[in-house]
């Protein structure tokens, strides 16, 4: 909703624009206006590649078996697609990890820069907008699909530093977007105003009481000013009360308090961010999101899986190191469980004002910076789509042999009705969208 529509809307509710800062996030007016089919997309990022033999189904087509890593998605098997043979072919400056994350959603080379990786030439930011932002801009430009935020950039344990290893989403060339990794800050961003409103309601009451008390012992001139003050307090209370009649479609999620935002907090943070994301979608705040687990070269130590080495360190171990392989499989299973949790959450909520569940109208795209950790290969990125709404033929394992991931992003754009001829690097834009339907 743009500002002037919002103002008009408030006026109809009898609210002054002055009450704006304290009003809750009003659900999008477009929500439930039925005409356009609901479509949402979530890009889920995990680092350090996968263990291919335990990831890729042996079969292609509708009859396929999920291997260990994808086993947590068993209940969504008919609503998912695995996409083998899709390569990130972007080269140029920067090491494989930088390109792995910063060229993933942007599908173009990095700008030359000063950030030196473990190999290759130093590089800077991505030179292209990322596909999530491309789709977001398309949706925001149309009143019927525009939402309060357009897109949400959320993270789980993303380090507090801005460089090509920590950013996947770009508003444009050279314009990285920072994911929000603090669930409490995310809560404030989505619902802070309504929480403030709640606090204010009780506070204003107290202020009025005290004003009365003070007024009994002051000069008439003072009383005149305080009476005015009391009027403003009363007016604000009234504004808040009328605002209270506009409730969120779904109440804010109840977050566990006091979760430490560090390595060991990751499992809880992961759940909280998924809950926040789904709730924000349900309340019509956005239709596009990225959810980024750590960063490229992610170094989480998954002690809750009894794995004490860091993820990236393990990923460098050769295939012959069976212990490391087993740990990496466990790590990737855990990550698949996070995806499954998100999918279940979406599936548990009937589509507001629509058909089926939210998952039927939301596609989760599981991405990775690498295909395989110890070779730093950007081929066969372990892409998985879960959910519906984009008109793809789900319930199959696909193998494209050797295509660029630029084309996958074109497919997604087209599914949203955004018919761009190509996306990203000019050499890899040929061939149009991948056939997914």
């Amino acid at each position: 909703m743009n500002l002037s529509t919002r103002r008009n809307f408030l006026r109809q509710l009898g609210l002054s624009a002055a009450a704006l800062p304290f009003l809750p996030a009003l659900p999008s007016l477009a929500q439930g206006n039925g005409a356009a089919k609901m479509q949402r997309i979530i890009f889920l990022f995990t680092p350090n590649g996968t263990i291919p033999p335990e990831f890729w189904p042996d079969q292609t087509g509708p009859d396929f078996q999920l291997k260990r890593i994808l086993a947590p998605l068993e209940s969504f098997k008919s609503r998912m697609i695995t996409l083998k043979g899709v390569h990130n072919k972007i080269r140029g400056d920067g090491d494989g990890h930088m390109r792995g994350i910063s060229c993933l959603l942007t599908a173009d080379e990095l700008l030359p820069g000063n950030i030196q990786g473990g190999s290759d030439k130093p590089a800077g930011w991505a030179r292209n907008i990322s596909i999530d932002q491309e789709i977001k801009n398309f949706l925001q430009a149309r009143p019927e699909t525009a939402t309060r935020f357009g897109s949400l950039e959320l993270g789980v344990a993303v380090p507090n530093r801005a460089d090509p290893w920590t950013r996947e989403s770009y508003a444009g060339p050279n314009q990285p977007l920072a994911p929000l990794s603090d669930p409490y800050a995310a809560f404030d961003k989505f619902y802070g105003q309504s929480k403030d409103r709640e606090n204010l309601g009780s506070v204003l009451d107290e202020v009025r009481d005290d004003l009365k008390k003070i007024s009994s012992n002051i000069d008439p001139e003072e009383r005149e000013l305080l009476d005015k003050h009391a009027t403003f307090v009363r007016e604000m209370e009234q504004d808040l009360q009328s605002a209270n009649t506009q409730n969120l479609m779904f109440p804010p999620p109840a977050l566990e308090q006091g979760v430490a935002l560090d390595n060991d907090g990751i499992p809880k943070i992961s759940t909280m961010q998924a809950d926040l994301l789904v709730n924000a979608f349900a309340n019509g705040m956005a239709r596009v999101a990225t959810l980024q687990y750590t960063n490229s070269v992610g170094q989480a130590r998954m002690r809750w899986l009894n794995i004490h080495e860091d993820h990236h360190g393990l990923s460098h171990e050769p295939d012959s190191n069976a212990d490391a392989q087993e740990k990496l499989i466990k790590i990737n299973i855990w990550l698949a469980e996070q995806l499954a949790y998100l999918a279940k959450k979406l599936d548990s909520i009937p589509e507001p004002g629509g058909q089926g569940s939210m998952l039927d109208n939301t596609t989760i795209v599981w991405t990775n910076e690498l295909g395989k950790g110890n070779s730093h290969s950007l081929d066969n990125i372990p892409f998985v789509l879960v959910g519906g709404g984009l008109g793809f033929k789900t319930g199959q394992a696909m193998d494209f042999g050797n295509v660029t991931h630029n084309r996958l992003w074109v497919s997604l754009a087209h599914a949203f009705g955004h018919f761009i001829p190509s996306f990203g690097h000019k050499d890899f834009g040929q061939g149009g969208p991948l056939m997914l339907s």
Partner: protein
Amino acid sequence: MNFPPKNPAGLWRIREVLRISIFLGLTGCLLAQDVPAPLSGEAIYSKHCASCHGKNGEGVKDEVDEPLQGERSLVSLAKYIDKRMPEDEPEILNAEESQRVAEYIMGAFYSPEARAKNSAPPKMAVARLTNRQYRESIADLLGSFGKTTVPGEGKGLKAQYFQSDGMNKKARKALDREDTRLEFDFAEGPPAEGISPEQFSIAWDGSLIAPASGWYEFRLSTPNGARVYVNGERQEGDGNFRDDSGAKRQTALIDSWVSSGPEMRVETARIFLLGGRSYPFRLDYFKFKEARGSVKLEWKQPRADWTVLSTPYLSPAEAAYVTIADKAFPPDDASEGYERGTEVSKAWHEAVTSSAVEISNGVVARLRRLSGAKDEDADRLPKLKDFCASFAERAFRRPLTDELRQMYVEKAFAEGVSPDQAVKRSVILVLTSPRFLYPELGKEKDEFTVASRLALGLWDSLPDKALVDAAKAGQLRTPEQVKAQAQRMAADPRTRAKTNEFFQRWLKLDAESDLLQKDAEDYPGFDAALVADLRRSLELFVEQVVWSEKSDYRELLEADYLLCNERIAKFYGLPVPEGGGFQAVKCDPAQRSGVVTHPYLLARLAHHDTTSPIHRGVFLTRNVLGGLLKPPPEAIAFEDHKFDPKMTMREKIAEMTRNANCMTCHETINPLGFSLENFDAVGRFRTMEKDRPIDPVVDYISQDGEQLKLHGPRELAEHAVASEAARRGFIRQLFQYELKQNPPAYGLDTLVKLDATFNASGENIRQLLIEMNSLAASHGVKNPDQASR
């Protein structure tokens, strides 16, 4: 005293009456001998004055609206009447009659004594915190829960230079030093010996000193990597300099760590800062394999132009984080020439409320630091409650009664809400409470009132610990105790910051003015850089005079030197001072005299292509000579092209304002402006205007009623120094700015008393600050020693 212009109908009426009386007077003369007994002062008043001033000097609507009251001495009043009253026909009263009527007016209603006799004394205006008071109070309230720092010496930043090694930016320290200016061009070379030019990093650390309150813009230019931190709280891991470290927690104001090829990147950001305080500051920089290395950080102070950030605004000293309330507030009422909190509005209440919410969020985010209560503490809850109670007590400027503790603290915690939410509620409640927002609330005036007034008067803020302790210990009872506190507080940087803001206002440095943009063809070289230097010259001059040992008001007006740097000296044809920076350069005393002839003001009070005697005259009347002027009845723009180009400016202005309606005020304004005609529109001394010689000699009737002949600026300044009305006018302006009240609210003789001590102190401005604040602080507070026994 104010003599507002008449409406034309009123004028006509007066003229008729006067014509008749003149006629009668002449007849009387012809008839000679039989002279009636001289009229009494009262009779003269009712005959010649009451029609405009009212029977008892109360004023008459549409004639003289304002009551006939003032601070003039009898001599001055009598002279004034003789020269100027009745308006349009002052000849009607001779000196002796004027003396008589002055005596009558004086005793009947004019003097402070007479007014005290006649009516209830004026009271202090009820007021909320002004916006400045609010912001300063918030900063000190939150600041009181941690380490506090005072601005360090502005001599530069600590700089550490490192050899880098790939991702490790701090592989080896190569150099420690202090840098004074954040502009470095290393080109293709190293920043120092012993470092390879290919990869190195530098960390500049210390504090930033903000001279004034307002929005500051920062502009970072580098083709390499850099981050700017301003007013951030130092966090664990901030010193970590590896590229891939996730340890950093502090958020950068500008993060330009990642480069984009060889091109120069320019990034800007803005932040609100309070003047007179220092802020944690850090600039991290590195170069990695790019062809060239350079970094520049510029800033734009409020109302100033972009300059490279440098001394004296950078200090190696540490500074504590400052909580800044940067919400936009509606401007305070300034209709009487100073900001005061006498009005409340819906917009103000909303700003206060949303600011309270914002600050409460900051409190919760920093709760561990502020309260000292750790998450794992068993007694966290009681600790948080105590924190909230201290917060309320400091905000309310007095001990918290049990009842108030219940209301502002316990109740917020009592409802099963989480401790963080309870703190948040309590903080919002305190910050929206009238007890915080209206500092003088309630009839009871005690030592805490004294403490509160001293802190507001000298700092615009809350009492500090020493002041609160003194109040609690009963040590703010005697005038000596109060003065001793004021003396202590006057040495605090906050006093300096507040006083500097007064002078900014007094000298019109507080707002941008397009009048400072001069015609480039007529005044080549008078550019933005020179204007910025002139501002700085005037600011520095005032600061040096006011904060010197003597703090002599007379020096402000009479100094025969100008603070010049090279650019100013060259432009004004003065010797370029040695040693760089701003230095005092002696001028011809006949040409330059203190602020009266400072080129910043002369240019600020001139049009873009000509002088403006009216601007200059109004400024001198109001700000320097203690006069009051009402706004003109109709605004007439000066349009140069409408005059014969052969006329001098003096002739043009005289022509433009010759109407009697204008002359009631311009009689005062014009001569003052004309006396500065030796200075052109950019403040350069001149003797000719085109091909006509300039005549700066003027006849001027002073506020004290004296008929003066002034020969140029030096005599004008000497008159200002000698004039009682001018001095009292200065005291009044300072008083109003400091206390946000009119002096008579503290006793009708307030100005007279302050003037006497000011005189006795050698016109010491800082002493005056202490005197006026001490006087105001104790006003109406019963001495408890007498009250209770």
